[in-house]
């Protein structure tokens, strides 16, 4: 082989590279161009910093920000309620408040809206003593600083997702297989199982669940004030036994409620709460195997309530819009009910 031929073949092989970008663009596994006919498990997975950033750079109308609970929320469901709006799911599994905060900041800097999910342990600042969490925060922070979009189509992550998408289609997998598998989880656990698994009694070394400490008030207030009337905060439900443990250990309930109060009294956005003992949270079959995450079918009830869809039958005691007028009485009522259930 002579040098010239070697160079020609080299360029021929390397020309696969732009083809990869074109393939990624047209297969569109993350539903960036169009969410119809896409695998729901991929639409709801935000655990990739650069893809998450790409979604934000693409300037959708609404972003679903939060933790792994949002992996049970189909952005198409929200698009159905918010007609002609583009919605992306940008959750991070096991997210911290600081991570969600920087995502929300970028969304608001772009003058877009969010639906921000709150969760007790998302707010636990002590989790930053875990090196993995600190380093993940830095990874997301660095990714969010990148403003261009096109290069993501030429990345390992994207081609991996494209190849998986093609493989699933060849194997004739159902688009909602992820939600079906989640909805079919058989939940059988006791409060002892939960306590053993999560161990929030503050005796364990599990950094996610120990030394519960809220973020600085200033951060919560900044987020609250940044939000506009079109933004929404949602306190997602858990299986009620977690609420008993939150009441019992580390003053979690009290601290968490302080954070919620701070948010509600400082924001123009709507704050919806599904926290507390109600007919949904009392039923273990509505949750996964530790009661930590609601099942995808519950997300339909949550958003039917938020968007006032009366065609869906929602228990009356499930979900309340919090205002600075009802917040104190509502939280007191929740505490009372939890204590009486505990006893």
């Amino acid at each position, binding site marked *: *082989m002579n*040098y010239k031929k070697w160079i020609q073949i080299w360029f021929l092989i390397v020309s696969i590279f732009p083809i*990869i970008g074109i393939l990624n663009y047209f297969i569109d596994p993350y539903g960036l161009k169009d969410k119809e006919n896409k695998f729901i498990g991929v639409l709801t997975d935000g655990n990739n910093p650069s893809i998450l950033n790409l979604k934000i750079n693409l300037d959708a109308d609404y972003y679903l920000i939060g933790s792994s609970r949002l992996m049970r929320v189909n952005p198409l469901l929200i698009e159905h309620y918010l007609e002609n709006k583009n919605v992306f799911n940008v959750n991070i599994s096991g997210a911290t408040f600081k991570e969600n905060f920087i995502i929300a900041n970028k969304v608001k800097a772009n003058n877009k809206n969010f639906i921000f999910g709150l969760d007790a342990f998302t707010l636990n600042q002590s989790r930053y003593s875990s090196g993995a969490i600190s380093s993940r925060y830095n990874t997301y922070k660095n990714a969010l600083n990148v403003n261009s979009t096109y290069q993501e189509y030429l990345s390992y992550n994207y081609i991996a997702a494209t190849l998986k998408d093609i493989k699933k289609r060849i194997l004739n997998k159902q688009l909602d297989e992820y939600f079906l598998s989640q909805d079919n989880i058989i939940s059988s656990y006791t409060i002892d199982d939960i306590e053993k698994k999560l161990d929030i009694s503050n005796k364990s070394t599990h950094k996610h669940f120990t030394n519960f400490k809220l973020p600085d008030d200033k951060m919560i207030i900044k987020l609250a004030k940044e939000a506009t009337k079109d933004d929404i905060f949602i306190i997602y439900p858990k299986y009620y036994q977690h609420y008993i443990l939150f009441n019992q250990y580390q003053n979690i309930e009290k601290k968490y409620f302080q954070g919620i109060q701070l948010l509600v009294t400082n924001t123009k956005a709507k704050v919806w709460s599904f926290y507390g003992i109600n007919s949904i949270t009392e039923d273990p079959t509505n949750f996964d195997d530790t009661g930590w995450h609601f099942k995808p079918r519950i997300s339909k009830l949550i958003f039917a309530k938020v968007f006032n869809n009366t065609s869906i039958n929602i228990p009356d005691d499930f979900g309340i819009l919090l205002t600075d007028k009802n917040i104190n009485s509502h939280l007191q009522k929740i505490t009372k009910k939890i204590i009486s259930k505990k006893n």
Partner: protein
Amino acid sequence: MLFNSYEFIFAFLPITFFIYFYLNHKRLTEASKAFLVFSSLFFYSWWNIAYLPIILTSMLFNYVVGTSLNKEQEEGHHRFSKKSLLAFGIVSNIALLAYFKYMDFFIENINLVSGSTIDLLQLALPLAISFFTFQQIAYLVDSYRGETAEYDFLNYSLFVTFFPQLIAGPIVHHSEMMPQFAKTRNKVKNYRNIAMGLFIFSIGLFKKVVIADTFATWATNGFDIAPTLNLFAAWATSLSYTFQLYFDFSGYTDMAIGIALLFNIKLPINFNSPYKATNIQDFWRRWHITLSRFLKDYIYIPLGGNRKGEFRTYTNLMATFILGGIWHGAGWTFMFWGFLHGAALVIHRAWSKLGFKLWTWLAWLITFNFINIAWVFFRAKEWDDALKVLGGMFSLNDIVLSEKIGMKLPFLTDYSVHFGQVTEHLGDGSDVLNLLLIAFILVLFFKNTNQKLTTFHPNYILLIQSSITFILAALALNKVSDFLYYNF
């Protein structure tokens, strides 16, 4: 503009290449050279155009001084004025470097010693200033010695700004560059050089964006984020940096050599499997070779080298390496790193004089570990960071083994062993350990890129290897990361 960016690889480089050879094809050789200088300055200004006047002024100043020194040589003027002119040139260059690079360090220490509160200047370090300053000091010294020819300003500008080596070397010598720029044969596309250039560039890009950037995450987590490090996490941290630095800088150099080859210019090699070194002197013959060459020719030998007795040889070695440390950055940790290497060279020289010999494997082990430990000071932003990593590396009070081992050998808890994530704070334990193992294999048992280049023949194996390497690296270009030596 970074070598590892889309804009460089897919826009700047091909456009510059085609226009340069088009102009040469039309026999507009001076225009092609001018275009290359313009492209290089554009490349340089991409980061911050504010730096452009600095490099232009420095270039013009050194050209004028160098030419004057050269003329004085020819005209046989009085030696004193020549010496003064050289001193003026060197001092001016060092003053420029000192102002931008060392002024804050100097003020910090004045404040510390005297208790004063002088404000820091907080100047941004102009890109590549350490490199182009050294390169031009060498030019002045050689002009003084009468070792330079009469170069025109365009050639001189190309020597200083030629974009493949402008930002982080290799530190080139005018005597190896000027004849290449002048050679007529180099103005015609050369398929052999293009093939070799693409080959070495692809390997360099892979080394940087796939290997070095992966180690970078773990090194950053260990040095900058982790509050404490257990025994294995500390070793993984230091080794991650040791490999990050090598793959980053040698990757950059490979890319620079590859790009220059596209333009028919051969840059000097900078690395020759440094981690295979079996003593510290051997290491410095293999690591950042062009810097070692500069330090030897322009500091060590002028100080007297080994010609003035053993004691002076030792002090000259120490002085050269402490200066080498400071060249890398304004900080006591850099100076200490230079001191450690200087001391190691002194010990090695004394040891060799006594005629002692070690088994090769033991010599390698000692050398590699010394280098690895010394890099801790080079990397650490503060003394405390260095002490944190070294504390972890040499403390037996915090040993963490995997839970799998814990299930088999639970009695180890009696000996203060904990079970959990071995590389806590760094990243996934198995990933870290696997890549460290692969890196050891690569640096110890494989030919380096320079060796591969000397035996390069256009065949299918190298074709597949090179093109796949390029594609894999290009797929990781979405993560922007600087080269470590851009900071020096």
